[in-house]
C-alpha cells in the first residue's frame, strides 16, 4: 500500500474508534428517556400510593419522566412475570413484595423465579397480626390460646391463601398446638368485613386492620413478623414474647429491576430511590399508612432471598403443600 493510503486507513480507523468511543460514552449516560415504574397491586392501595410517591421523587432527581402503570393481579405474580420479561436497561422498574418473589414460585408455575430480578431497595414491609373484635371476650393472647385449646376449630378470615399473614397465623397455631379453620377471602378489606360482621372468630390482619384497631373496632392480640414490640403499641406482644419462634420473615416492599441490570445503572437508581425514601415527605406517607420505615439496599435484599426460600420450602413440605 502507498504511504498516503496507509495514512488514510489509519485516519479512518482512528475516526471510527473515536466515534465508537464517543457513542459508547454517550450511551453510558443514564437515564435519557422516560422510565416506566410498574406497581404490582391495584390503584389506591398502600403499595400503590407509596410507589407513586417514589416515582414522583426519582423523577425530580433523575430528570426524566417516570410513568406509573398498575398491574395488579395474582398476588403480584402478574406484574412480576411481566417485569422478568423486560430488558434490563433501567427503564423498567417494579414495586412489589418480597413474598411474591420468594414464596409464590414454590407453589405456582410462574414465568419467573427469585433469580429473575435485581432488587434495588426495600423501603418498608408488611406486618401481619392476629386480630379479634373489640367486643370479643379475648383481652390478651393468653385468654385466646386457652379458649382455642378447649374449642378447636375457630374460624378466621384472611386476604388469601398462603399470604404472609395467613402463614403467620398457621405458624402461631403450630407453635401453640392449636387447630383453626381458615376462610380465605379476596383481600384485606373483605377479610376485615367478615370479622366485623362476626362471621368468623378472628382475622389474619394484613395491615389494613391497624386502622380499625385504632378506631376501637378491633383488638390485635399478637403481631407477627417483627422481633420487638412496636413502640407505638407497646401492649401488643410479638411472637418472641409468647414463646414462639419467629413466623415467616416479613415480606418487604421492594423496588426491583430485571436481572442483569448493569451495575452503573443500578447504582444511579439505588442512590436516587434511597434519597427519596429518606425525605420527610415520603416518611410522612409511611406514617400515615402505619407502615414501618425499613430501608435495606439492593444487595442486602437479594442476599436474604435464599434463606427465605428455604424457610418457605421447609414450611410447605411440613404442611404438605409441597412433596
Amino acid at each position: 500500500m502507498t504511504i498516503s493510503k496507509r495514512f488514510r486507513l489509519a485516519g479512518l480507523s482512528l475516526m471510527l474508534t473515536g466515534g465508537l468511543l464517543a457513542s459508547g460514552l454517550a450511551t453510558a449516560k443514564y437515564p435519557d428517556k422516560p422510565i416506566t415504574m410498574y406497581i404490582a397491586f391495584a390503584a389506591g392501595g398502600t403499595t400503590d400510593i407509596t410507589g407513586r410517591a417514589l416515582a414522583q421523587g426519582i423523577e425530580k432527581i433523575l430528570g426524566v419522566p417516570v410513568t406509573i402503570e398498575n398491574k395488579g393481579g395474582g398476588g403480584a405474580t402478574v406484574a412480576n412475570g411481566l417485569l422478568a420479561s423486560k430488558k434490563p436497561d433501567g427503564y423498567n422498574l417494579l414495586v412489589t413484595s418480597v413474598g411474591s418473589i420468594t414464596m409464590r414460585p414454590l407453589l405456582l408455575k410462574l414465568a419467573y423465579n427469585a433469580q429473575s430480578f435485581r432488587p434495588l431497595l426495600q423501603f418498608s414491609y408488611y406486618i401481619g397480626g392476629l386480630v379479634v373484635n373489640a367486643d370479643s371476650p379475648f383481652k390478651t393472647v393468653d385468654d385466646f390460646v386457652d379458649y382455642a385449646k378447649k374449642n378447636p376449630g375457630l374460624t378466621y378470615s384472611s386476604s388469601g391463601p398462603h399470604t404472609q399473614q395467613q402463614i403467620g397465623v398457621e405458624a402461631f397455631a403450630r407453635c401453640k398446638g392449636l387447630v383453626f379453620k381458615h376462610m380465605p377471602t379476596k383481600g384485606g378489606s373483605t377479610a376485615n368485613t367478615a370479622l366485623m360482621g362476626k362471621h368468623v372468630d378472628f382475622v389474619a390482619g394484613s395491615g389494613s386492620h391497624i386502622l380499625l384497631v385504632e378506631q376501637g373496632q378491633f383488638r390485635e392480640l399478637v403481631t407477627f413478623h417483627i422481633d420487638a414490640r412496636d413502640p407505638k403499641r407497646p401492649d401488643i406482644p410479638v411472637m418472641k414474647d409468647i414463646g414462639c419462634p419467629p413466623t415467616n420473615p416479613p415480606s418487604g416492599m421492594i423496588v426491583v429491576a430485571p436481572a442483569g441490570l448493569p451495575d452503573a445503572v443500578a447504582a444511579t437508581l439505588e442512590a436516587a430511590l434511597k434519597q427519596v425514601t429518606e425525605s420527610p415527605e415520603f416518611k410522612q406517607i409511611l406514617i400515615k399508612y402505619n407502615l414501618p420505615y425499613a430501608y435495606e439496599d439492593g444487595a442486602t435484599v437479594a442476599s436474604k432471598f435464599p434463606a427465605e426460600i428455604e424457610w418457605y420450602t421447609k414450611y410447605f413440605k411440613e404442611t404438605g403443600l409441597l412433596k
Partner: protein
Amino acid sequence: MDLADNLITGFSVALQPHNIFFCFIGVLIGTLIGVLPGIGPVGAMSILLPITFGISPVTAIIMLSGIYYGAQYGGSTTSILVGIPGEAASVVTMLDGHQMALKGRAGPALGIAAFGSFIAGTIGIIGLMLLAPPLASIALRFGPPEYFALMIMGLVILTYLAQKSMAKSLMMAGVGVLAGVVGLDTMTGLPRFTFGIPDLLDGIGIAPLAMGLFGVSEILLNVEKTIKQGVVVSQVKNLLPSRQDWKESFAPIMRGSFLGFLLGILPGGGAVLSSFISYSTEKRVSKTPEKFGHGAIAGVAGPEAANNAAAQAAFIPLLTLGIPANAVMGILLGALMIHGITPGPLMIQKNPELFWGTVTSMYIGNAMLLVLNLPLIGLWVRLLRVRYAVLFPLILFIALIGAYVINGSEMDLYLMLFFGVVGYLMRKFDYEPAPLILAYVLSPILEDSLRQSLIISGGSMGIFVSRPIAAGFLFIALMLLISAVLPAIRKKRNALVASADENA
C-alpha cells in the same frame, strides 16, 4: 345532631367555589372516561390521585366522587349509543337502550337515563343522610351464606331476562358461570383454566368479555350486511322523553332507586345485581313484556336508576365503617388515609364537614351531570346519523383503546376479539350474550360464598336455612322458580286436558 344543621354544614362546604370547581372537573373527567368503554373510573381516579395531595381532603373526595358517578353515566351513554357496555353495570342498560337508539329514539333513551340517574341519585343521597349507620350494620350481617343465597336468587332472576328460548338463556348463564371460574381460585390460590397464560391469572375480565360479546360482535354482524347508511334507519324524532315515556318510566325509576340503594350497600356486585333485578322486575310487572329487548323505555329507566342509586349507596360502608365496597371505594379510602382521615364510625363525629360536605356535593354533582349531559344528547344523536362505514371503524378504535388501557395487556385485546367472534357466532345461532355476562359477574361471588359458608358451618348445608336472611333469599328464589315454571306446566296440563276432552 339535627338533620337541618347537618345539611347546612354540608351545603356550606359543598357550595364553596373551589369545591364546586373541583366537583365540576371530576364530573367532566368522569364522563369523558366513562364514555370510553373499558377504562373505568378506577384508572382516572388513580391517575388524578396525586393531584389531590395538595388540596383539602373534602375537596379531594368531592372531585374523586364526581369522577365516579360521572363515569357511571358516561358508560350508559356509550351503551345506549353504540351498544358497547364498558362495564357490567352498563350491560342491562344496553339491552333496551341500544334498541331504542337503533329505532331513532336515542334522545329519549339518553334523556330518561339522565333524569332517572338524577332522581335515583337524589333518593340515594336522602337515604345516605337518613339511614347510613343503621343500614351499614345491616350490611355487616351479610356474610357468606347470605351472599350465596342472594346469588342463587340472582341467577334465578336472570332467567327472566330471556327473550326467546328459556333453555338457551339458562345454558348461557351456565356458560357465564364457567367463564367466571377462569383465573386464580380464591380459596386455594391456584390457577384454574389459565393454560399457562399469566394475564389470565386474574380471570378473563369483564371489559374484554362485554366489549367483545356485544360491541365487536355487533360490528362483525353489521359489516356483513350491505347497508351503507347510518346506524339509525328511521327519522330521529324527539330529543327528550315524551309524556308517554315519563308515564312508563316513573314507577320503574322509583322501584329501581330503592332496589339499587338497598343492594348497593352490600360490598361487592351490588350495582350489577340491582340493575338486572330491576330489569327483570320491570319486565315482570309490565303490561307489555314483549316489548322488552326491543326498546322498552322502562327497561332503561329502571336499571339506570338502580345502578346510580347503588353507586351512591356504595359510599355508605366506606364512610360509616371504613370498608370499601368496590375498587373505586378502595381508592377513596386510600385518598382519605393519605389526608390523615380514618373513615369509620368515628368519622362522622370527628369530621362532620367531610361526611356532610361529600353527601351534599353529590346533589351538586348529580345536578351538574344532568346539566352537562342533556345538551350533549343532541350531539350524540347526530353522531348516530353518520354513515356506519365511517362510524364503526371509529367505534372499533375506541374499543381497542379502552380494552388495552385497562391493564396495558395485549391479551385483553386478543380476548376482546375472541369474544367478539364468539358473540358473532352466538348471535347467528340464536344465543343471547346478556345472561352469560351477568352470570359471569355473579360466578366468583357464588362460588366463594358457597365454600366460605361451608367452612364456617363445618360442612353442613343447614347454615343456609338456619340464618334468616339467607333462608329468606332462598325462599324467594324458590318461589320465583316455581312461578316461572308454573305457567308452562299449566299450559301443558291444559293442553292435555283439552286433548283428553277431544278424545273423549
